[in-house]
């Protein structure tokens, strides 16, 4: 399990999210000569955010490939490469553009193993910067994981710490299953969460949530940058004598139901927080599973705090208005705590 986040002790020598991702990619590329990285501007430029900087120099233009602006061909060709024995990491310049390669993901990549009765594996990770709270507007702010959660055959991962980023990316690459990997771009260079990365060939298992803060009064279930919002909210609630547990899912598919269930058995209250639109989002999935599995343990309605069912608007007051705030999370916590 990953180290606990220690925002205050981060030093310059510690590794940030970007460093962690690059380490993961470098190690896996060194380990597997049949692995390549492809995407727009990943080679010469080193990626819009620099995740792959220096990798083309190290591994050559054939293994770190600058692709035409063709998301469908980026995914579709990766499917062919996987069919013929390769492992591929595809970068979406922003995860929002995954919509342009959508069919190849949900109908081709996701189903290949199923259709072939297991003959063909799809060791493909589609990764990219994601999330709002960044002034990125409608097309540079999305968390669109629910589309893929409703498309059987895809693993979905969203780390919130550098060590998780490294360990989960490596685990996803080696899993042999197609994975959509959400990187919170706001965390890329966040020095507050920089940390020492575990030594050696470090993997974080898929499907295992992390308890970021223990608590006995209510359970926040979340992932990505909302982990930090929930930790802040928990801090605020603690000031009022309410101890909130914060669970970072890390992997949405497969989902660690056991950890959530155990927590609810102790706290009897559930608040699920994410920044995707509410309707059919992953927060609702957690609520739906727990309303069934944990029905007898819930002493208050299981509550969601999500984006409004709107796009993410550009200017700051509007963006803040539609995305969940720490206040919203605190209020939801109070609501269930006082129910």
């Amino acid at each position, binding site marked *: 399990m990953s180290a606990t986040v220690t925002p205050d002790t981060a030093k310059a020598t510690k590794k940030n999210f970007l460093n962690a991702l690059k380490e993961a990619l470098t190690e896996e590329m060194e380990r597997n000569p049949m692995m390549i990285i492809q995407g727009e501007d990943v080679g010469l430029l080193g990626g819009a955010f620099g995740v792959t900087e220096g990798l083309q120099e190290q591994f050559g233009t054939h293994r770190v490939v600058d692709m035409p602006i063709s998301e469908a061909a980026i995914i579709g060709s990766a499917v*062919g490469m996987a069919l013929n024995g390769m492992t591929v990491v595809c970068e979406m310049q922003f995860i929002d553009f995954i919509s342009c390669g959508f069919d190849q993901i949900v109908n081709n990549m996701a189903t290949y193993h199923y259709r072939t009765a297991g003959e063909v594996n799809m060791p493909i990770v589609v990764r990219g910067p994601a999330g709002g709270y960044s002034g990125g507007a409608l097309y540079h702010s999305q968390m669109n994981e629910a589309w893929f959660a409703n498309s059987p055959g895809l693993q979905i991962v969203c780390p919130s710490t550098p060590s998780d980023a490294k360990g989960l990316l490596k685990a996803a690459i080696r899993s042999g299953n197609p994975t959509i990997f959400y990187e919170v771009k706001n965390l890329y260079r966040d020095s507050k969460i920089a940390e020492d990365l575990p030594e050696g060939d470090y993997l974080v298992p898929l499907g295992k949530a992390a308890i970021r803060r223990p608590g006995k009064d209510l359970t926040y279930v979340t992932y990505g940058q909302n982990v930090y919002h929930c930790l802040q909210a928990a801090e605020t609630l603690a000031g009022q004598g309410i101890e909130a547990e914060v669970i970072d899912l890390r992997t949405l598919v497969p989902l660690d139901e056991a950890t959530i269930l155990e927590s609810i058995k102790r706290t009897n209250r559930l608040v699920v927080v994410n920044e995707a639109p509410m309707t059919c989002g992953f927060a609702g999935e957690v609520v739906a599973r727990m309303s069934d599995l944990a029905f007898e343990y819930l002493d208050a309605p299981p509550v969601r705090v999500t984006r409004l069912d709107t796009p993410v608007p550009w200017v700051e007051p509007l963006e803040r208005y539609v995305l969940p705030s720490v206040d919203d999370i605190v209020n939801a916590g109070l609501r269930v705590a006082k129910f």
Partner: protein
Amino acid sequence: MSATTVSAKEGHKPPHQLLSKEDCLEIFKQLFLARYFDVRLIKEKKRGRLKGTLYSSHNQEAVIVGSLYGLESTDWISPIHRDMPGFFLKDAKFRWRDENRIGMSIKEVCSQVWGRSDSPGRARDNWSHIGRRSANIIHSTSMLAGTIPVAAGVAYADRMKGGNAVVVTYNGEGSTAQGVFHEAINYAAVHKLPVVTIIENNQWAYGTPTHLEYSLEDFARRADGYGIPGLVADGQDVFDVYDKVMEAVSFSRAGNGPSIVECKTFRAYGHGDHDDDRAAKYRPTQGVEEGRKRDPIAICRAKLLDWGYLSKEEAGLYMAEGKGSAQTTNEDFPPEVVEYLNEGIEFALASPVPPAEEGGKWVFKEIS
């Protein structure tokens, strides 16, 4: 090599002239085999013994047979809905029953069509959505043209492994309007990947004629927009298809990148067997008669006669051309053709239907 030099190289011996008499006779027989598969399956369906849709390749067999015949075992292919015979004709020359050939056996294909466990995909997806990694056959989804980027990726991987394979993809002319067609061809052109895209231009995409699908005289000219060769073949003449595909394949194998080969042909019946009645209404009768006139079996037979590879007597033995499924009998086909398919069907009928619980399996590879 430019598009023009490929398609109009002067004083260059057409590849089919290097084929032996045996090869030519085998090609002729494969045309019968492809035709028989089609008419027989229609009969089986009419008898209610089959589920799913047959997208008849009747009258288009020269494209499948001619394009596959010159490929290496190690080459890859991606047949689609109208190319069912392609699955068992890959790498089949002179060894239809060879268990070691890199292609699918008639038993496997029939097991797929009949929805049985011995299909390589255990009948989880239907009819033409089949393939096998170990047979170098790419599986398609329903989403048209979606296999071309996959073909490009297969070619890329082959190159990484130091291989020399060419990947041949099949597509109807209507499918080329898909965005992914463009993305894949452009990508293959940029990376000079050995992908030959065969366009089976049968003049119709379901109920839509070509002038509503694209705005070119010869579809092959689309290749000019990517700076790659675009060849036109007479899709009714198996030897012309062979020639043009071999030109394209050699071009690719020599490291020059992708190309498009347009095979002009005609869809003899409805889009699928469910569409026969409606097709009779939406397609002008005259056009249909015209389009069916040049039967690939007849054209091949005439050439073999002409070249002295068939005696008049031999040539008259099996007359399958110009007949719909209902009008043909087994006597219209060489006995080994009928026998081969019989074996496949018998095998399939003996193969069990997959157990229901398999529906829940293989969503993910087990993580070890």
